[in-house]
């Protein structure tokens, strides 16, 4: 993995573009962007709080060989998977997936911003879901709130208390799940074996160490 980070990239050369094509999900579409900007204008989060680099700019940065600026950026992590950019792109570029792909790659090679909340959520969600095959919402929430240690966890929990309580009252948040009485798949073993294999194959395909 480390070798990935030793990569030297020159300005306006293809090597970083190639790296993204090989490593990031759907990365081979980046070169097709014609900088119209419809994606940037379609992003809802973009209009509430700007990104460092909206998608089209991110693509230009990749073509300009600005590896650090791209991989260290928090931009991809702002994606809410609303698919507005995806359906409006005049080049039919799967922008949503590329955002995810670049984020995933940055994370894999240890470039994701420290304590990126959405990254943390992604990790937590996936681990939570794959542990038993199904999501345990209480544990999910707990893990999320306590990710920065008890103190802030309690603060967040307090902040979210009314929310949680409302759900509990509505029987839509089952405290029992906290103690493990929850939905789970029968063949958890099979699922884990399957996932290990999948991870191994993907790593091989992308020339990474799983």
């Amino acid at each position, binding site marked *: 993995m480390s070798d990935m980070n030793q990569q030297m990239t020159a300005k306006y050369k293809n090597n970083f573009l190639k790296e993204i094509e090989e490593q990031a999900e759907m990365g081979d579409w980046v070169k097709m962007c014609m900088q119209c*900007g419809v994606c*940037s204008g*379609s992003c809802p989060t973009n209009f509430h709080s700007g990104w460092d680099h909206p998608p089209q700019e991110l693509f230009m940065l990749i073509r300009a060989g600005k590896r650090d600026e791209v991989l260290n950026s928090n931009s991809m992590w702002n994606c809410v998977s609303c698919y507005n950019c995806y359906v409006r792109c*005049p080049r039919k570029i799967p922008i949503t997936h590329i955002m995810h792909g670049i984020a995933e790659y940055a994370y894999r090679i240890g470039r994701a911003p420290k304590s990126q909340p959405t990254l943390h959520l992604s990790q937590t969600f996936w681990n939570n879901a794959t542990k038993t095959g199904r999501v345990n919402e209480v544990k999910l929430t707990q893990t999320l709130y306590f990710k920065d240690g008890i103190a802030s966890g309690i603060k967040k929990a307090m902040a979210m208390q009314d929310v949680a309580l409302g759900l509990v009252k509505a029987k839509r948040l089952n405290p029992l799940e906290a103690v493990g009485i929850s939905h789970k798949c029968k063949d958890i073993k099979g699922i884990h074996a399957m996932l290990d294999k999948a991870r191994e194959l993907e790593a091989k395909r992308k020339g990474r160490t799983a």
Partner: protein
Amino acid sequence: MTSVVATNQTILVVGGGIAGMTAALEAAETGKQVVLVEKNPYLGGRTVQLYRYFPKMCHPTCGLEINLRRLKANPRIQVLTMAEVTGISGGKGNYSVNVKLAPRFVNENCTACGECNKVATTEVADAFNYNLGKVKAAYLPSSMAYPQRYVIDPSVIGTAEASAIKAACKYGAVDLDMKEETVTLNAGAIVWATGWQPYDAKNIQPYRYGEFPNVITNVEFERLADPHGPTGGKILRPSDGKEAKNVAFIQCAGSRDENHLRHCSRFCCMASLKQTRYVQEAFGDAGKSTIYYIDIRAIDRFEDFYQEVKANPNVSFVKSKVARISEDKNGDPRLWGVNTEGYVRYSEPHDLVVLAVGMEPSVKGVNIPAEVMSDSSGFLMADPVNAGIFGAGCATNALDVNRAVQSATAAALRAVQVVNKVARAEA
């Protein structure tokens, strides 16, 4: 029954727009027999629906007048209006063509005196003005209309109004019993000049054309700016008739877009640059235009025009494909997007939005023989093997008027080559 004199040395020109008229005239003025078929009741096609031409800001009817004079003076051209080609058989040097003639309900006796119009009461959509206005059911499409002959809308046929219209004509020009007919004619070569149609803006969902009244297309804007258009040349927005002093032009509305038209329609950049002049003309410095674009394609000497417009402080350019349009409570369309030159977010209200819709070749629904090839956008391509049918003008490519005429002149020669060959063979 309409009679048409045609032989296998006749050139059939399909489409009476500027490309078709040009092809017909050039061939006829070189001594060839020509039949010119047009589906509208008048000649001139889309150019006569334009207010001005770029880059000279001159008027399309000026050139049309010359072409009509050439036509009137030339006995070699037979014109069939309200006519559509429904089938072609045979081959290069000897085609047999079926032409369907829709009834005009007015014959050549018509003197264009207008008495029929006076008694007509029903109003029908004014196609000449892209249905932005209405005309009486007995109408002359425009002052420049040729043939200079009224048309009666089929919707009134069989009504008392129709009888009144007939009675109003002292010259027996109104013939309510006219029926659709199909004539079959012979031709040695065919020039296909059916032109283009504006891309249907309804398909471009984020721009809400058809839902937001103040989002219109570039071809409609031409009619708004034309003193002889539905608003008498006043640039008023549809929702409330308010003067549209702050106008947004959205380029590539449908063009350069794999969800719509894959090709670049070429003329739209210049058209919008031209239309900013309309805004300036109407409101002086109070008129503001903003062009939202990906690339400004002001090719060759058109660049001069672009530079002039660019120098106008009342026109601004934003390098951005507008993401979506919303509507403010006062009816203002609001444009959302990002200026990609340095990542600047905008959410900008305008009085009126003009979508620079692109060009779609009008070759749909017509039975052109298989030997005619077309490209991925539907434009006709020259077929080196069977060429006896030649595309001309915007049926062959996204072209501006000047290039369409150029293309039509070339097509005329290709057709002349075929009939000359026939003549030599028969000599």
